[in-house]
């Protein structure tokens, strides 16, 4: 099974991520599927990461943590977040197939980021959910 995203959809996705996240100080955001494919990727121009490796590891990480959740009797964890000294990374599931990953510094509080991510996710769902019925 493959899926396709057209120009309009991808533009809309980028707009949402830009407005909600990049413009609010998030350093880097990428939307991937659970196989590790990158659907969209935006950053604030400051630093370039190896996003292909990040995407593969993020998908693997999220998958591993989800499997752990099931083992301990949880359906899923509501927060997956890694805190660094300067950079932090937050994961959010969108439907069963996609992941939104944000990298942000300490100038943004996690609570605020989670609010903005929740907003983005609601909007992205409307674009991504139809793909799952294909």
């Amino acid at each position: 099974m493959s899926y396709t995203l057209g120009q309009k959809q991808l533009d809309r996705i980028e707009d949402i991520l830009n407005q909600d996240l990049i413009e609010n100080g998030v350093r880097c955001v990428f939307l991937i599927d659970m196989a590790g494919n990158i659907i969209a990727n935006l950053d604030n121009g400051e630093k370039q990461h190896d996003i292909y490796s990040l995407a593969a590891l993020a998908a693997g990480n999220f998958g591993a943590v989800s499997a752990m959740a099931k083992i301990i009797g949880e359906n899923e964890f509501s927060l997956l977040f890694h805190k660094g000294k300067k950079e932090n990374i937050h994961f959010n599931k969108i439907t069963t197939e996609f992941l939104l990953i944000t990298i942000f510094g300490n100038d943004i509080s996690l609570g605020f980021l989670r609010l903005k991510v929740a907003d983005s996710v609601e909007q992205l769902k409307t674009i991504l959910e139809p793909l799952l019925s294909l």
Partner: protein
Amino acid sequence: MAFVNLKNKEIQVKIVYYGPGRGGKTTNLEYIYKKFRKRINTEMVTVKTHGDRTLFFDFLPFDIGMINGYDVKIQLYTVPGQVKYNATRRLVLRGVDGIVFVADAMAIRREKNVLSLKNLQENLANYKKSIFKIPCVLQYNKLDLLEQGIPLLSTDILEKDLNTQLKRPSFSASALKGTNVVATLKKIISMTVASIKRDLK
């Protein structure tokens, strides 16, 4: 599952190297990475144990350039082969488009090859994928041990054990020396990309 990006005219393809522990999956990727580093121009990611066994996966992405107007990006993964890492193997298989089954040609590994292939079938079924439908190439690895006098399974036996029903292309190889590593890779990429194109129609 392959992802087609119509905006960037890009197709992302996931190929997983599967097989029993210590069979040569990681060595395949390492060979490709070392030999073609300059042309591929990307880094290989490995998540290993201290004992140099794959713990999570190895990952090597590269671009093969334009095909029919689309930029085809290949992502090679290996899985950890040890039996205890089944949950991890299942994770890595998610969204797979093509498989290279790296069998260990050493005689003592005969049973492990078969078990690993069955394990692949089960894990694919978990994602409602059939081992009979997914693009797949078999590689009978460790050809180089022949000259060291280590007993190897003959190609006939390997074919009989592993390929009777699948009837897929197969290559005898030496991942360490590089024999047929690239041939295997070329074959699986061709098959996978062709299959994706068919799916999209």
